[in-house]
């Protein structure tokens, strides 16, 4: 949570918080668990009206930050999505919109649809390899043949791919990267459903077999998209971090309250020193999580040269300690915390998912070391 939000940021967050509390309470999430899409399209459009997909898009593209710090703004939403374990393609729609908005803007009709919520887009970045979220290792190729771009390769996991009308595919063109907007219905695009730990977030494995689109569908320069890819990746990581911090916050508050309400051996749990000290540790992790997510978002907005390191520090720390925090909340609840009926697992699922989507904590620790090595010139 930002310590000094602007009034507009505060209002953005509160509006979304109220909307999520009213429309996707835990009972609704359990219903959506049995829904193929995991979210309701009309509901998503209502959310889009609250600004859910517009913050990372410049005003020229039809969007706009509420504070001049678009990434920080977007983390206000992500925080609430985590706090409520909310459904919906927040990450993919925002990242695709950001990509389109950053490129001149390009494909204004698609962008408009994303902004209004009528269109869902998803980003196909990660691949099945040990370090699948790092752009350096992308094996998918985008080849220029005549006036067409040919996409060949496999991507996974791709969020909400089956709901998306548009897939933004990141592939290799020679030694550079290209991003290309592929209509989901293009021949050669094959989707296979995946299973995720989350109740409502849905992912697919996507294969692109000789998929051809006109060269105009490139987003940004062909073979020159690496900086933009890195920026999208960092934005995505910060949104995931902020979302997980929201889930940590909720789990912490819930469990702290439980410790006051629950009596054992004639005393509230909150009076046991060993538990008190664990809450102190959790509070420390929680505050550190807030600090890292906020600092990383600010660093992206400011193009701080330390942004890459901060983003990976946030991903590594929040991924690891966020999950540990919610797991300890489960432990403190005891068996009830492991039941489907209890709400705690909604938060545990979200932090667990988020620590895998764009790189695990271990991968981000290595990334930090790699950044240090670059710096040290070795």
């Amino acid at each position, binding site marked *: 949570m930002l310590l000094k939000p602007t009034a507009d940021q505060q209002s953005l967050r509160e509006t979304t918080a109220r909307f999520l509390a009213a429309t996707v309470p835990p009972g609704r999430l359990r219903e959506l668990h049995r829904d193929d899409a995991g979210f309701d399209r009309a509901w998503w459009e209502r959310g889009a009206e609250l600004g859910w997909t517009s913050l990372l898009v410049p005003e020229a593209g039809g969007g706009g930050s509420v504070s001049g710090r678009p990434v920080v703004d977007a983390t206000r939403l992500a925080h609430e999505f985590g706090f409520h374990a909310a459904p919906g393609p927040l990450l993919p729609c925002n990242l695709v919109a950001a990509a389109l908005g950053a490129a001149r803007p390009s494909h204004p009709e698609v962008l408009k649809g994303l902004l209004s919520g009528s269109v869902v887009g998803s980003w196909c970045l990660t691949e099945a390899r040990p370090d699948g979220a790092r752009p350096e290792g992308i094996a998918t190729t985008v080849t220029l043949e005549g006036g067409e771009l040919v996409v060949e390769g496999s991507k996974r996991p791709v969020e909400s791919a089956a709901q998306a009308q548009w897939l933004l595919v990141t592939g290799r063109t020679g030694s550079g990267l290209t991003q290309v907007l592929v209509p989901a219905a293009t021949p050669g695009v094959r989707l296979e459903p995946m299973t*995720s730990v989350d109740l409502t977030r849905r992912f697919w*494995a996507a294969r692109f077999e000789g998929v051809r689109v006109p060269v105009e569908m490139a987003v940004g320069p062909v073979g020159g998209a690496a900086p933009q890819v890195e920026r999208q990746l960092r934005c995505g990581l910060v949104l995931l971090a902020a979302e997980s911090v929201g889930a940590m916050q909720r789990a912490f508050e819930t469990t702290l309250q439980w410790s006051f309400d629950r009596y054992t051996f004639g005393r509230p749990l909150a009076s046991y020193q060993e538990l008190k000290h664990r809450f102190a540790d959790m509070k420390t992790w929680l505050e550190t999580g807030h600090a890292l997510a906020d600092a990383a978002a600010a660093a992206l907005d400011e193009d701080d040269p330390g942004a890459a390191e901060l983003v990976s520090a946030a991903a590594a720390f929040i991924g690891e300690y966020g999950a540990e925090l919610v797991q300890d909340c489960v*432990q403190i609840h*005891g068996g009830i915390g492991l039941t489907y009926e*209890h709400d705690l*697992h909604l938060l545990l699922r979200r932090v667990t*998912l988020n620590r*895998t989507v764009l790189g*695990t904590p271990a991968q981000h620790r290595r990334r930090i070391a790699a950044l240090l090595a670059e710096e040290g010139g070795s």
Partner: protein
Amino acid sequence: MTSAGPEDLAAFTARVEAWVEANLRPVDPALYEGAFRTDLSEEEELAAVGAERALQRRLYDAGLAGLCVPRAYGGQGLTPEHQQALNRAIEGHEFPVRLQAPTFTPCLAVLLEFGTEEQKRAHVPAILRGEELWMQLLSEPGGGSDVAGALTTAVRDGDQWVLNGSKIWTTGAWWSDWGLCLARTNWDVPKHRGLTVFMLPLRRAGVDIHRIEMLNGSREFCQEFFTDVVVPDTDRVGDVDEGWTVGVRWMFYERLLYETPLVTFPSGLSRTFIRSSYAELARAAGRGHDPAAQELVGEARMLDVAFEVLQERIALGVRTGRISDQAAAVARLFKGVTAGRTRTIAFELAGMTGGVWTADDGPLAERGVEYLMRQAGSIGGGTTEMARNVISERVLGMPRERAGDRDIPFREVPRAPSSPPSGLP
């Protein structure tokens, strides 16, 4: 020695090995890992239970049930060494896994120690023949680790009792036959002095059994609701208001788990199926040669090996009286912590596949779900927090934690101002 002394161990071993080879199917021990957690349908689960009952009956008929149970109650009157020989012989073979706990321990153990002659003659042979599966009706919703704080109440009515209340975390109560139930019979004395133990058929009027769904979809656990359930006084175990005397031993047998000679469990089962799985995960993740993955694999294996030798040490120590029997809590604590860590390692090795997977991901699939259930090993069967209390207070002799319910009538014990919430506020 009686005229029919215990069968010679070597002869027994040879006989058992031959019988096992001839009668029991070999199975992949990995199958048992998820014995209570698979997604069997209700029918499949009932069929599996039925098969295990039949298997138990075959063991009984072969003279291999209740090796350490007195012959008077249908057992064999042999020694723990005989049971160990059986445990070794069945390694790698099918065995009635669902019947061991809680039927043989703690329920059978408690019956043998506290049951009346009539009770033992009525139930022990039936248990050994696989006809009666037992449950322990101990934990209560909202009761947590404080089992002596039971609210389920039995009120005397002539030569019978009327029970009301609820119990929870019973494994497979819906396919079981009898339960051992700790109930409050006096609210006007301190909590430990107003409890009584009853045996209770689970298919009696007034007993409603509800299957609990866990976050991973498992429905192994049940909650029971008792509404005016009538129990004859002859089904009382131990004296009235002396249930805690029974309860202490009950929980002792529960902690012993596979360490009691009442239980039949293949030696080294855990060793076998764990041995290769971490290394396989690393290979499946394409990280067989990654030193960071190797350290995780090595750590997980180290913890498993450590648990194995720790358990052996404590069992030996308790058996020989060199270690307090409270030290079972040491193994329980280590096991809980280790289970959490090894599941985390498996999840880490799965990498990005830990959160999202397809069925094609082989050993990497589902690791995320196991991770979500990680704390189960530190909660079920007594929390690790309780184990730490036991170790510090009973093993190390450190001062007891202040209790808010000591030496006051149970009805005056401070309780939550309202029923605690079960969801997000």
